[in-house]
């Protein structure tokens, strides 16, 4: 069941120049609604004269012990800038949980690669945790411009092997995620990816060629986030589907990206 909730900011950590990690909890110790990996929330931004609509943000992590929801925010325009300025104790209004989720592999021996680029790493942390809890050994391949843009590496390493690329070579392998040697050296059965569209398309193409199951998480612009405006559609083999309800996670076989 979707809810509109006022959550309280418990932490706001600046991770680098443009990235902030916001931690939120319920005001009355009520349990947070269950959230699935790959789902997102719609955040209301007050105090921004140029922000009218809510902003979709992925579930970065759910700390069930502390009853905390984590949001990884990349500052893009005034909406995300205002979110990055949230102070501890402030109230943030959210709609949640929204969208579908990544699908759990059937076979426990599956070799899983979770590829995140830029702010697209956000959903991978929680997905990795859920996979590990379910008995899988996920691998993470995280790409960024530069060493300082590789975020939450310690958190990721709790749930699996972490591989990285940077465009300037300041950390991990130099280049894009699709050039990383792990793709040559290891055989994966499943790839999950989120990031800039060109990156996801390259990953999808690679997975398709190698016959690897592949799910991508899309970030189409949204007006509502819960399936009523029909603005966020992606053209799929089944027609125009709403990314906010039938996605954000799609199997690449359902998209029109490849041939």
């Amino acid at each position, binding site marked *: 069941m*979707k809810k509109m909730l006022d959550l309280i900011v418990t932490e706001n950590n600046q991770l680098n120049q443009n990235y902030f990690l916001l931690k939120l909890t319920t005001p009355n110790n009520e349990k947070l609604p269950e959230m699935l990996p790959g789902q997102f929330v719609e955040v209301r931004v007050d105090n921004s004269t140029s922000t009218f*609509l809510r902003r979709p943000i992925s579930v970065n992590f759910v700390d069930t012990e502390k009853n905390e929801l984590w949001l990884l925010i990349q500052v893009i325009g005034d909406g995300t800038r205002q979110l990055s300025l949230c102070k501890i104790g402030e109230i943030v209004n959210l709609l949640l949980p929204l969208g579908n989720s990544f699908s759990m592999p059937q076979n426990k021996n599956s070799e899983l690669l979770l590829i995140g680029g830029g702010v697209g790493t956000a959903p991978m942390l929680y997905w990795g945790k859920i996979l590990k809890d379910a008995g899988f050994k996920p691998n993470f391949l995280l790409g960024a411009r530069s060493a300082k843009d590789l975020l939450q590496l310690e958190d990721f390493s709790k749930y699996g092997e972490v591989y990285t690329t940077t465009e300037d070579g300041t950390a991990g392998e130099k280049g894009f995620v699709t050039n990383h040697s792990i793709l040559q050296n290891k055989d994966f059965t499943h790839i999950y990816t989120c990031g800039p569209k060109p990156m996801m398309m390259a990953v999808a193409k690679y997975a398709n060629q190698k016959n690897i199951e592949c799910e991508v998480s899309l970030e189409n612009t949204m*007006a509502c986030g819960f399936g009523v405006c029909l603005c966020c559609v992606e053209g799929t083999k089944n027609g125009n589907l709403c990314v906010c309800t039938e996605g954000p996670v799609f199997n690449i076989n359902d998209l029109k990206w490849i041939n």
Partner: protein
Amino acid sequence: MDKLKVNIGNLELKNPVMTASGTFGYGVEYSDFIDLSKLGGIFVKGTTLHARQGNAYPRMAETPAGMLNAVGLQNKGVDYFVSHIYPELKDIDTNIIVNVSGSTIEDYAECAARLTDLDKIPAIELNISCPNVKEGGMAFGTSVCSAAEVVKAVRSVYNKTLIVKLSPNVTDITEIAKAVEAEGADAVSLINTLLGMSIDINKRKPVLSTITGGLSGPCVKPVAIRMVWQTYNAIKIPIIGMGGISSWQDAIEFILAGSSAIQIGTYNFIDPTISEKVLIGIQQYMEKYKVTHISDLVGQI
């Protein structure tokens, strides 16, 4: 709660607060957030005779205090509605009103006709004002002749409450309203979206795949209030007012301008519980000023 009851033609509303077509899905999408039976009515998605895929993505652009959309009436067609969607809706304890669109007069009439027999659909809203489709749509709503023609055709096949939704993209909305009234519409609803456009200055391309789209949200409210007021002074049938309502104060403003009932559109995206809040606010306003019936406020400025 009788002080909130409103009649629109033969349609009985338990209160004047309704939700606008294209912004409220089929209603059920909101059932997690609000009690749908509290609403005066729900105007469901724009429905056409045949299924439509709608326009290409991107379909939306945020603008100052509003948004542009270019959905283009994506829907599965009236037959699918009748067979698959209607059964899911018919037990919701409020008025479900179908927003009917078309590319030709025949389409409109045929689509309307197929909705006549649905017991729990007491009214339709004729959308002659959609700016997001190539043929028909808004074209019908911007000329007196074609507006009259389409209403006439539909009226002859549809005998329940007929609401005609007017376009604001006209020099004189009262002319269209009068023409539509003359052809037997039971009520008019206004405004649909204003035609607008937004450009991505880095890509040097329009943001919307369709170049232009429909503007809605608080930014359009002053234009909508003006058109409701003008129309109120020009016709006798009731007006359902909308355009930018984001609070109960806005709803009262529309009622004072001459709306017998109102619809909330875009703001449902920002606050899916806004319709309940508007209803409560209207009740409190009426208590504060000892208004005995909502109709005592309509057009009273």
